[in-house]
Structure formats: structure tokens, C-alpha cells
């Protein structure tokens, strides 16, 4: 498993670097709604990966691994993550790439993340009794929640992304 992870990560890092999505200025540009480069990258990855994965799954060649929907955890944890992201200007994965590009302020973020993860591990018993238990709906997918076929949602996601891309380009975002 480990050499495969390294090779996949190398290729991922190359794509992140070439797409210019690693930089603080780009990440903050998206959060300030001025430069949508990272949103373009993310949505392109999501819809392309979605089409490929559902085709692979239909052919019996891929198994899905859906994370549980726990609204308390997803919403509170998500907002807390966002607040830290706005301050740091890198994501957990992309900061390693930013460091690789020479943006060495990412090293402070990496150290902070190791410290934050250690704190999370200490507080886990408390968290699991509270926020991690609030609004637990189990492993849910959007097709199951909405009661529609994924093959309806996938074209909608693609179409919606293309509309958004067109708007970004018109606005010069």
C-alpha cells in the first residue's frame, strides 16, 4: 500500500503545483471571492472523478467508501476547519505541496497541525460523547437522501459546474 500511496501523492502534488492551487494567495483569493482558481480545480476534479468512479462502480471495479453524515460533527468541525484555513491559508494536504514549492511558512502550519491533532486525540473521549454524536445519520449519499438515481445527479453536477465556470470566466475571477 505504501509505495502506491507515495506514487499517487507525487502525481497529485505535481497536478496541484501545475494548477497553481498551492499558494496562500490563491487560497485566500478564493475565500475573499476574488480568484476562483482553487474552486475551478476542485470542481473539475470532483465532477471528473465522480463520472469515472460511478462508471467503475457500475462495472464492479470500484468500491465506495462514504464517510458517515454526522451533522453536528460535519457542521461544527467544518466551520472550525474553515476558520483555521482562513488564518493559515493552506489545507492539510496542500501545505505539504506549498512547502515543496518553497513557501516555507507552510512549515509553521504543519507543526501547528501536528499539535492540533495531538490535542484532538486527548479530547476525543469528550468529543465522541458530544459533537461526534449529534445528528448521526450514518453513511448517507445524496442520491439516497433525495431518493433519485446518481445518474440524474451526475449530469446535474457537471452542468452546474460548467455554468459556474462560464460565470467565473466572464467575471474574470
Amino acid at each position, binding site marked *: 500500500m505504501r509505495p502506491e500511496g507515495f506514487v499517487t501523492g507525487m502525481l497529485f502534488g505535481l497536478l496541484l503545483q501545475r*494548477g497553481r492551487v498551492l499558494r496562500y494567495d490563491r487560497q485566500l483569493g478564493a475565500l475573499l471571492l476574488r480568484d476562483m482558481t482553487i474552486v475551478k480545480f476542485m470542481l473539475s476534479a470532483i465532477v471528473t472523478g465522480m463520472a469515472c468512479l460511478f462508471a467503475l462502480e457500475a462495472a464492479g471495479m470500484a468500491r465506495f*467508501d462514504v464517510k458517515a453524515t454526522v451533522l453536528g*460533527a460535519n457542521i461544527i*468541525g*467544518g466551520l472550525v*476547519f474553515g476558520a483555521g484555513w482562513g488564518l493559515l491559508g493552506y489545507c492539510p494536504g496542500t501545505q505539504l505541496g506549498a512547502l515543496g*514549492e518553497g513557501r516555507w511558512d507552510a512549515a509553521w*502550519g504543519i507543526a501547528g497541525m501536528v499539535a492540533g491533532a495531538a490535542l484532538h486525540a486527548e479530547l476525543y473521549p469528550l468529543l465522541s460523547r458530544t459533537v461526534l454524536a449529534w445528528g448521526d445519520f450514518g453513511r448517507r449519499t*445524496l442520491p439516497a437522501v433525495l431518493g433519485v438515481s446518481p445518474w440524474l445527479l451526475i449530469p446535474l453536477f457537471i452542468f452546474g459546474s460548467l455554468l459556474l465556470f462560464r460565470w467565473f470566466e466572464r467575471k474574470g475571477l
Partner: protein
Amino acid sequence: MIVRQSSVRAPGDGGAWSPYLAGALAGILSAASVLWTGAFPGASTTFSRAAGMAERAVSPGHVERVEYFRRVVPAVDWQFMFVVGIFFGALLSAVLSGSFRLQAVPDLWRSRFGPGIGRRAAAAFAGGAIAIFGARIAGGCPSGHGLSGLMQLSASGLVALACFFLGGIAVARALYGRGRGR
């Protein structure tokens, strides 16, 4: 914000690809990874494993007593190597394309908060600690929830990704204001 990387390139910043192309290739790569090893890209659990490994070097007995480290074992796994690979892939790509640049303080940060390394270090360290704490509660980060989650049309991926951006937009606006900073 008018300058797009496809049309204008700063000197010493070669090799940029369209974010649409790079993103689409990242989507194909994610699907190929699932086909190859069954592993979906993610990053945030790696920091829990790294914290456990660091703590074990200092105090092995303590790690044994922490319940979380029995669930998330402090050891190198696929995702850990994936995250390490991102560093080397970006380094190689930046060096080969001539866009590697040692920088202590990002341009936008400098324009608002000045060139001081200490100030940036404190904010980045605190931001990293807060971000990972939230990501571990949410159950993932923009790669695990955002990319890998939404690719599978997971409900949690959509909720988490929306909240990542809401929290991020609020703090970015607090730091830079609506129209300032550039």
C-alpha cells in the same frame, strides 16, 4: 484578479496549467487510485498518526493510554505516504518548471500584515492547529470530504465542504476586509 495564469505569467513562474485541466487530471488520478488500491485521497488523518508517532518518541506509555490512538494507529499507511508524496511531487514539478521560490511570507499576507516572519509564523501555527482540530471533528479535510466525498456523492462531503468555505470566508473577511488587501 484580472490577471489569469493562462494569459500572463510572471517571470520565474513557468509551467502553469489551466486549473480546469489540472483538476480534471486530479479527478482521473483519484479514480485510478481507487481502481489500483481501493484508497481514496485524503490528508487530515495523517496528522493524527504523525502526532501519535511524535508522542510515542517522547512518552510511549502515554500513547498506549490514549483511546484515539487505538482507533487511529500511529503508523505510516497509504494516506501518510500520499501526503509525503505531495511534498516531493510539488518540489519536483516546481524545480523542473522553474517556479520554485523560497518565500517566508506570502505576498498577500505581506501587503496587509507586513514582512515579519514571527507574526506569520504565529498565525500559521495557530491556524494549522485550529484547522486540523476542526477537520478531525468533521471527519476529513477538503481532500477527504470535499474531493473524495463529493466524488461519491456523499451527503457529509457536501455539508462539510460548504462549512469549510463558510468558516474560511468569514475569517478571510475579518482579516482582509471586503475590499482591501490587494
